[in-house]
């Protein structure tokens, strides 16, 4: 009991020190494990200054990354915004690694430190460690090592081939980052050690197979025209992972450039789940810190004053400006996710007649088990489609606006009423679908016989066409990597070509 009093005194002192953090971590992990049954990676909590936070921002939280001007630009941009007061820095930044590294700002008060530890080191950490997206698409064990490998490799390339050349490859690969993800195939795990061994093996094979004799072969006379029928179509199936396709099949790309593309692809792959689970991830972390801090209050670790500060920050995080507010900038993922998770708990515990009709599966279940199940097995679009309840729609007063290019006016598509719930839910789910912000572009053909030309097809969805100037610039980057002409067709749902971009 004396321990509790000691802790209480520490937690209610606005100034923290090392012992405070240690105690906070101990209490919060215990509650997370015992009360919320969270399984997490071990934590590595790093206390950083604002400058170091800016550094962390620039590398999207990774402790190390390969050198590139883009990160420098992001750094300068953030620094400008921060020093001019246009942007605040977040209280924490956490990355999906094992151990789970989180950066906490030094100027957080004790209360904020506790909140942040509960939020990041329990909430996000548990999400990283249990959600299927993160388990299947990323390897938390090796990402830090892999980035160190990537850095080494790029530095070596810079030394060997010159910074300019490396920069060209990286620029081009970055332009295709969103098209470097295997959405359906689960990628193989990355590991710096294996990666190094793979490279060694590759050079070894090359060396073994080298034979001076081959160079003495006379060049073949003009090959007879091969029948370019459908059976020779390459690739057989369209490929949506453009980066992968270039890495594997670009006709004249040196090996080291393929390696660089591979690195960018792996990084893109690593961040893919983060973009697809923003609402769930933040919602679950907020749900976690809310429960943990309240539990601490119940158990007497913190006093009323602490709770007041906590509730102020908590409600600040959950602030959702309305559509006509000048602060409005889209739906707040924290609010949306937190509301849905809280509602799942409510439905399990105190269902209404409406809930019985909408969520028969949840009725009478253990709320914690259900929350775990949801947290582990969904991503944003499926999460919303499945669990956005009429009550949350009503509480947030969600409505949809139809913005049709052809129409002079917006139309209100659905509001929070009986007729609208399903529509709103479906719409919101689609809004979080990757396809709504990454155009669906696939490699459909390569002219293997004459020009080595690469054909890409953009499948137009909902009449959304490509932004012409950025498409041209991106195509130029593809042209550079592919080494031969590139053509992009935008096809509508009838398969009719609407627009063509070409790089000769």
């Amino acid at each position, binding site marked *: 009991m004396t321990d509790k009093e000691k802790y209480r005194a520490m937690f209610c002192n606005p100034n923290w020190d*090392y012992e405070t953090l240690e105690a906070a*971590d101990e209490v919060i*992990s215990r509650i997370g494990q015992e009360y919320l049954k969270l399984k997490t990676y*071990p*934590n*590595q*909590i790093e*206390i*950083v*200054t604002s400058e170091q936070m*800016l*550094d962390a921002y*620039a590398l999207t939280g990774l402790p190390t990354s390969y*050198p590139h*001007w883009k990160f*420098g630009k992001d*750094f*300068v*941009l953030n*620094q400008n915004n921060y020093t001019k007061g246009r942007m605040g820095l977040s209280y924490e930044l956490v990355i999906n690694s094992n151990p789970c590294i989180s950066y906490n700002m030094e100027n957080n008060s004790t209360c904020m430190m506790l909140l942040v530890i509960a939020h990041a080191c329990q909430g996000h950490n548990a999400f990283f460690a249990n959600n299927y997206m993160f388990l299947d698409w990323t390897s938390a064990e090796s990402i830090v090592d892999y980035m160190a490998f990537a850095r080494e490799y790029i530095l070596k390339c810079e030394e060997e081939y010159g910074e300019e050349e490396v920069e060209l490859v990286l620029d081009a690969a*970055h*332009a295709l*980052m969103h*098209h470097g993800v295997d959405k359906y195939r689960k990628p193989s795990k990355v590991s710096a050690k294996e990666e190094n061994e793979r490279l060694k093996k590759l050079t070894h094979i090359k060396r073994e197979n080298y034979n001076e004799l081959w160079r003495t072969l006379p060049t073949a006379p003009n090959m007879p025209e091969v029948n370019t029928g459908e059976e020779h179509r390459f690739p057989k199936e369209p490929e949506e992972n453009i980066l992968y396709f270039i890495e594997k099949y670009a006709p004249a790309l040196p090996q080291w450039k393929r390696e660089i593309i591979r690195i960018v692809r792996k990084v893109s792959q690593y961040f893919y789940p983060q*973009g697809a689970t*923003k609402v769930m991830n933040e919602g679950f972390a907020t749900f976690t810190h809310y429960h943990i801090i309240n539990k601490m209050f119940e158990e007497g670790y913190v006093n009323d004053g602490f709770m007041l500060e906590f509730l102020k920050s908590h409600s600040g995080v959950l602030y*959702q400006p*309305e*559509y*006509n507010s000048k602060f409005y900038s*889209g*739906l*707040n*993922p924290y609010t949306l996710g937190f509301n849905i998770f809280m509602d799942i708990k409510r439905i399990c515990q105190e269902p209404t007649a409406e809930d019985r009709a909408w969520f028969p599966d949840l009725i009478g279940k253990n709320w914690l088990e259900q929350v775990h199940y949801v947290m582990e097995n969904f991503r*944003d679009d499926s999460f919303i489609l499945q669990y956005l309840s009429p009550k949350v729609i009503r509480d947030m*007063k969600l*409505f*949809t*606006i*139809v*913005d*049709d290019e*052809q129409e002079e*006016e*917006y139309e*209100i*598509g659905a509001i929070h009423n009986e*007729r609208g719930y399903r529509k709103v839910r479906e*719409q919101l789910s689609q*809004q979080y679908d990757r396809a709504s912000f*990454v*155009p669906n*572009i696939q490699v459909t053909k390569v002219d293997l016989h004459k020009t080595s030309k690469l054909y890409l097809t953009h499948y137009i969805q*909902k009449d*959304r*066409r*490509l*932004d012409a100037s950025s498409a041209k*610039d*991106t195509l130029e980057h593809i042209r550079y990597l592919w080494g031969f002409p590139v053509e992009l067709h935008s096809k509508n749902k009838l398969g009719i070509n609407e627009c063509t971009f070409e790089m000769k």
Partner: protein
Amino acid sequence: MSHIIDRRKNDKGKSTGNRQKFLKRVENQIKKAIPDIISQESIKDSKSGGSVKVPVRGLDEPHFRHDPNTGKKQIVKPGNDRFSEGDRVPKPKGGEGSGRGKGSNDPTVTEDEFTVVLSREEFLKYFFDDLELPNMVKKLMDSTESFKMKRAGYTRDSVPSRLNIKTSFQQSLGRQLALKGVFDKKLQKLEEQLAGTRKKADKEALALELEKVRRQASTIPFFEDIDLRYNNFERVPVPVTSAVMFCIMDVSASMGQHEKDIAKRFFTLLYIFLTRQYKNVELVFIRHHTEAKEVSEEEFFNSRESGGTVVAPSLKLMDQIMRERYDESWNVYCCQASDGDVWSKQDALECKNLVLETILPNIQYMAYIEINDKSRESDLWKAYNRISNDEDFSIRHVYEPYEIWPVFQGLFRKRSEVTA
């Protein structure tokens, strides 16, 4: 199981390398902006520390994206307070009203123009690059203070030429004494043991051991690496004194914007150079057309007057100011910029005599730059040419920024001779 790590003491410059890469990418934009910055800033600012803001166009990172103005989009928004299903709302003009419907999932960050803040050192680097200064000079001008080497005790590691024989020998003696003491003790002990034993085998072994130690004791090396001591030198800042720099410029109608820009760069360079050498540098601006006048910097560069040109009064004024305000402890530098047009040959001659008789004996260095395209030699040029010696008085034609540098060569040659 958690680790808590305090990173605050760690280096914060993790992004420095990437920032440099970024700067390199916008180098051209920065270089283009430098003339503007120089013409906006006062000469003294160019040294005063702080930072320079250079506006840079946001660098595009292209990727495939949807044109926000196309297609049929449905956007979910919170906080409905007035709408029912089927209501129609006019679109805002400009079509950007709903562009942000994707909320926080939107991966694109919009950025237009933003400014890069350059540190003073970085700014000077670009400034010098533009002037095409040789590297040696850049380095000299970059260093904030000049240093002198001063004796400071001894060190164990240095170049052979700095070997201090006396101290090394002392060390050697000490080491030999110490080692000898150890061996002596050992010998004594062994001898006692030898006297105390009776067994023959032991005796032989001890005798052998004794012999070995004796040999060791007699072969203590005279010098070992650890004995060597070298003279140590430390860099100490050279005591700095004050300097005054006279800027004399012709402001007659023939001096246009380009000429003034060149003159300003020239003055700035000299100013920076002097501030590297002296802690306290004062500036005196004298402008002249038919009469000379001391003015503020702003007036110096920005006002324009027409009329003919008489140079001699400005030199007289300078001499007068020098006598009145600056005694012998001041290092005086003078630079004069003109397009070379003078009223008469008489004036040019008078200038020559003034410079030779009253000015040069009292000052460190005088530079005269003539800003024209060398199509003709002016009277002033001809007059000065007779007395210029590149040692304390150099004259140059300058028309483009990169031509400014050679003017300094004389000055630097002199410096390096002094320090050598």
